[in-house]
């Protein structure tokens, strides 16, 4: 007699749906609804992206502070958290783990914070390209690539070093954009 589950026949029979865990996109937006960073891990047209962004920003901003950080939206799960004036918002699939996604957001905030030194919204506005580089080191294709804070920052700082070596001084006029 095998003390196996009655349901096992089905699950090993290949009838179970295949799930792929994956983050679909990440959006950063302000309390005023201004988009500060967008990262899409699925191919969508610009029009769709704009539509999703508009709807989602509205939905999330309408929620009250003590509400839970997860909501169902279309056939996705939205995980969001507010840090000061910025909302960080990720869309994941049905099978994905909400809590670990919440901590992905937190780790990203920590990385930004460590890199910029108590990060604020302005840092992300003025150095948006850096925010993207850091995100790419941390998450690639929607999956965690490197979760060690030290290793991610090391990679970014190495790049910054390359930048400083390469830059040559510019004339003042050129620097302020008058050329």
């Amino acid at each position, binding site marked *: 007699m095998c003390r196996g589950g009655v349901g096992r026949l089905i699950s090993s029979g290949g009838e179970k749906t295949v799930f792929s865990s994956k983050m679909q996109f990440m959006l950063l937006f302000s309390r005023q609804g201004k988009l500060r960073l967008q990262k899409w891990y699925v191919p969508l047209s610009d029009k769709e992206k704009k539509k999703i962004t508009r709807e989602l920003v509205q939905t999330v901003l309408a929620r009250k502070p003590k509400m839970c950080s997860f909501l169902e939206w279309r056939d996705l799960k939205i995980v969001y958290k507010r840090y000061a004036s910025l909302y960080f918002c990720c869309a994941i699939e049905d099978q994905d783990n909400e809590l*670990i996604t919440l901590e992905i957001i937190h780790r990203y905030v920590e990385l930004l914070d460590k890199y910029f030194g108590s990060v604020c919204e302005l840092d992300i506005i003025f150095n948006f390209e850096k925010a993207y580089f850091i995100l790419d080191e941390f998450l690639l294709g929607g999956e965690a690539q490197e*979760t060690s804070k030290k290793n991610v920052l090391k990679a970014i700082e190495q790049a910054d070093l390359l930048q400083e070596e390469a830059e040559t001084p510019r004339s003042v006029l050129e620097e302020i954009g008058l050329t």
Partner: protein
Amino acid sequence: MPAVSKGDGMRGLAVFISDIRNCKSKEAEIKRINKELANIRSKFKGDKALDGYSKKKYVCKLLFIFLLGHDIDFGHMEAVNLLSSNKYTEKQIGYLFISVLVNSNSELIRLINNAIKNDLSSRNPTFMCLALHCIANVGSREMAEAFASEIPRILVAGDTMDSVKQSAALCLLRLYKTSPDLVLMGEWTSRVVHLLNDQHMGVVTAAISLITCLSQKNPDEFKTCVSLAVSRLSRIVSSASTDLQDYTYYFVPAPWLSCKLLRLLQCYPPPEDGAVKGRLVECLETILNKAQEPPKSKKVQHSNAKNAILFEAISLIIHYDSEPNLLVRACNQLGQFLQHRETNLRYLALESMCTLASSEFSHEAVKTHIETVINALKTERDVSVRQRAADLLYAMCDRSNAKQIVAEMLSYLETADYSIREEMVLKVAILAEKYAVDYSWYVDTILNLIRIAGDYVSEEVWYRVIQIVINRDDVQGYAAKTVFEALQAPACHENMVKVGGYILGEFGNLIAGDPRSSPLVQFNLLHSKFHLCSVPTRALLLSAYIKFINLFPETKATIQEVLRCDSQIRNSDVELQQRAVEYLKLSSIASTDVLATVLEEMPPFPERESSILAKLKKKKGPGAVSVTELEDNKREGGELNGGSDRGPDTSAMAASNASTPSPSADLLGIRSAAPVGAAPASAGSLLVDVFSEAGPAAPSAAVNDDGFLRDLEQPTETSDSLLVEGSGDSDSAPPSEDPAAPLPEADDLLNKFVCKNNGVLFENQLLQIGIKSEYRQNLGRMYLFYGNKTSVQFASFTTTVSCPGELHRPQLNVQTKPVEPLVEGGAQIQQVLNIECLTDFSEAPLLNIKFRYGGALQNLTLKLPVTINKFFQPTEMASQDFFQRWKQLSQPQQEAQKIFKANHSMDTEVLKAKLLGLGTALLDNVDPNPENYVCAGVIQTKGQQVGCLLRLEPNAQAQMYRLTLRCSKDSVSKRLCELLAEQF
């Protein structure tokens, strides 16, 4: 580090961003942007060649403008130029631009790919990473074509740096998801699995995502990852919080990696190797134990990371669905979370419990939390949490708590958020139907639904209540009375008027005896609503009126007057006008007999799947209703609806008997336990006597007694009661009671397996029977899995297989060994049947199962899904051969043909899959009409081979098929034709 030091590379960009931020209005911003775009355009077009720095700066400005939401239609070429710069930052900005603004311009893609290729072969790890990030971000098919073979090489090469490996793994994952056909498995795959052992935690973290995805598609090839994943997980779970250094997150060792490992294991069944399995169970227990330990930090990040692992572990436990102990522990843990002060945890606990509710091991444990969940539905302040609570109530509902849950959901509906009302209505309607034991409750519930949330009650819901009332004459009088009362409300929903009109039109006579609901009172009540209703409802009411004329001749004059008035007979709506004119004419010309025939009571509706379920499924997607649940529902819906071959009460009663040990079963149990002196010898013998002549003659008193009892019994699985109890010593002899007649649905169950070999054959509240089978030539082997769904032992479990016709002329030879007579609660036993096909056959073998559950004997008979097509050998042939043979089989009796309506999807792929499942070869390019399908095969029996040709002609427009079979043996043509006509 001060913020300014980071952006000082491009002060011009910072100035531009400041300008934009200082714009007072949207117009000013657009003006500033347009100025900048003009400036950049002129720079790019200018004669003076731009240096790398300027290009970088302008490209970056374009990117910023794009991210503000404006369209960018130039600058791509400059960005591509930056890719080949040997300055890192220029290259980096170039790649960023490409990643964000990828354009399917093929010319550009070639240039981009070229740059990427150079960087990949540069052996400079930072450049390689940039290139890999770009591929992972864009992930287009063109890139897959260019790099799908190169990246695996980088991934497994011995000298690749760790950071490059990490990027390569996830890059490959992205390409595999976009273009799985281009990523070829090969020698690298086994090496990828071993990355799970890599010393660098980051490499493992990245590689495991790739491995998980590949395992889902190629489980066998990646099987070795299971034991590697278990040992890795075990090392992490047992490590101290400081062991993993920077991979420890708020005192939790490697939470991301742990979750991914647990997710990977969910691609596989429980490990077969006992040692591996033991180690894994230990891990899962440790994770559950840790949840009970005091937190190492008060930070929410600590508890989130810890609980993320816990929830993933619970998912795995649910996936295995085989460790009752772990399932119950998981359920208890979630029960604690239901009352946690963190909203997030309450939400997740409700969500996770939903899946636990569908496991037979934990269903009962979940049910104990019903009060908490109801409370959550009432008091949670967040609608998304309330939604979860409603979902869980739906999932935990069964016959024992249906009334309570439905009542709670109904009362919640009164205040429910608009966003979830429609779904709630559907769920209430489904539960009420599924668990209705008495139909007056069902009718009350649906009418309440209409009263409370009429706007959200879709057509399907009120259609369904009418179908059920029409098909069940025991509830018609009650329905008429209730709906009559509901219509008394001064304001009632239009849906109520529709149901009321229909039901009173059909069954108003059942309450007409009461002067308070005399025919005229009924009519006046309905007609008082008429003018407030929409056109379709009015049309329905007109039909109800003409039915009234037939039911109650005394209302004829009144109704004719109504039909005759201008607002009806000259109504501007054509449909209403036509009905009024026709009904008026009909009522004045036709004789009573004709009227009675035309307006006869509606015949019962054919048995069909509840349309409500289909609707819920469509609305919610697969998440809401699991497939098994749907099938479950379908069966139960059928039972409700199809009262034709049983007495009206039997199905509901049989169902309620089956679901829980009912009081009567208990009684019988007691009786069987008491030694009833002389009974055993005599009791069972009546049947033996009648059917086999083998039994000893029984004392006449006993015979009479038993015979009387038997007559009273319903022919259902729970029935044999007394008679059976008497023959308690039947273990040694073949079971002395008569095997029950095959279940009414036995044929439907059989039909489900014509084109497939594995699946669940049968399931009720007690027992699940699964099947796996394989056939070769004229031999077959079938594995039957009997699962005890209850927590109580099944005793005297016996199964018998019998082949019809075996006495005179054996067609099938089925051999098996007896199963063990005891099946523990929650356990599964297996039985192997060896089948030999001696000659072609039409009747399926019967499987009779008997066992005692709580003292009551269960006796059911099913048809084993052994059909003649299982012994097909596919035959490939060319068009010419096919038609030659087709002509050879031209005698009329060799051909069987059927034209029938499509019952399932007519989708090509679905049809092909079914035809292949049939066992024949599906022949391409044979039929001149490409829409048609032709198949050929040879049926192998011991005595002979029967060649069969098949042609299926779909007509998508008419939703019809014509099926033609020609076989060298006419009985085979006929049988195959019967079988197949049910499949499409």
